[in-house]
């Protein structure tokens, strides 16, 4: 659409009454026609209503932190924490896989659970991570004690 659409077409577009094809043509035209774009925006009274929701100014230290290239502390701590838990579980899995497939299976399940809780609050993530590490360590310890029994070498 090289020529500007009529007022009637623009009004119909604003009301969502155009067919898909014609509406797409108008929308594409609006991308490079400030006059039609301005007309539609001025026509839209929702702008006035939404203007009541005035966002606050960001705190000055936010810009300072960005300029210094600092990531948010909470996110950084969470990433490090989750990485540490994941690393511990993977290490436990590798070290126990050779001796006990059951523990290796448990570690795999634990990693899936850990991945699932990454979208949960921090307290829950910490609790789940702690439980997983402790239970994995306990299982590994138990497996090590039972290994001679399984092999038939009674103490």
């Amino acid at each position: 659409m090289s020529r500007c659409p009529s007022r009637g077409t623009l009004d119909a577009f604003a009301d969502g009454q155009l067919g898909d094809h014609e509406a797409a043509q108008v929308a594409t035209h609006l991308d490079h026609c400030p006059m039609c774009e301005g007309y539609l925006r001025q026509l839209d009274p929702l702008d006035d209503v939404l203007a009541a929701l005035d966002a606050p100014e960001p705190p000055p230290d936010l810009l300072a932190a960005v300029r210094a290239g600092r990531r948010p502390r909470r996110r950084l701590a969470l990433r490090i924490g989750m990485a540490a838990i994941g690393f511990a579980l993977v290490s436990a899995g590798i070290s126990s896989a050779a001796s006990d497939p059951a523990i290796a299976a448990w570690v795999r399940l634990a990693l899936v659970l850990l991945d699932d809780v990454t979208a949960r609050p921090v307290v829950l993530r910490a609790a789940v991570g702690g439980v997983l590490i402790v239970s994995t360590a306990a299982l590994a310890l138990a497996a090590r004690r039972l290994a001679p029994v399984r092999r038939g070498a009674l103490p």
Partner: protein
Amino acid sequence: MRALEILEHPDDEARLIARAADGDPSARDALASRWTPRIYRFAWRLLGHDQDAQEVAQDVMVRILGSLDRYDPSRKFSTWVYAIARNACIDEQRRRIRRPSAPLVGERPDPAPSPVMRVFEARRADRVREALDALPAKYREVLVLYHFEHLKYVEIAEALDLPLGTVMNRIFRARRRMRDLLGEEDAP
């Protein structure tokens, strides 16, 4: 501020981005000054929580400044930035249990001169906030991008990686829902 003034022209913005990508500190500062408040307000409107909005803005802007070499100049810089910011907001929403947006009432700057007007404006803003929060996320994000960030339909489609028709439908439906939610009194 000259560094910000020269951004008014798209070619100048492209040059500024190229300089920032090359590590020019003044260009990086100019980009940070221009985009940090925008991303913060965008996140504030999508998330309804000040602290989360600050963290998202800080995280997104630091990531953007660190990956300017990956920016494709054939795309508009604004759509690239809003796409990253929008994804960060989605991650943030998934990460947390929904928190009440009530603290925003106290944090909003006073828009009116008299106490009576302030109460009236605050109540009106609360209703708009509640209506916006009540919208499904897919409607809220297109409404915020169109009405607050002043992106065009085509730009929103690019930022959200959606077909143009889908964006138009969502905007129309979002408007209708807002009208319903705000009731006849505030209805446009």
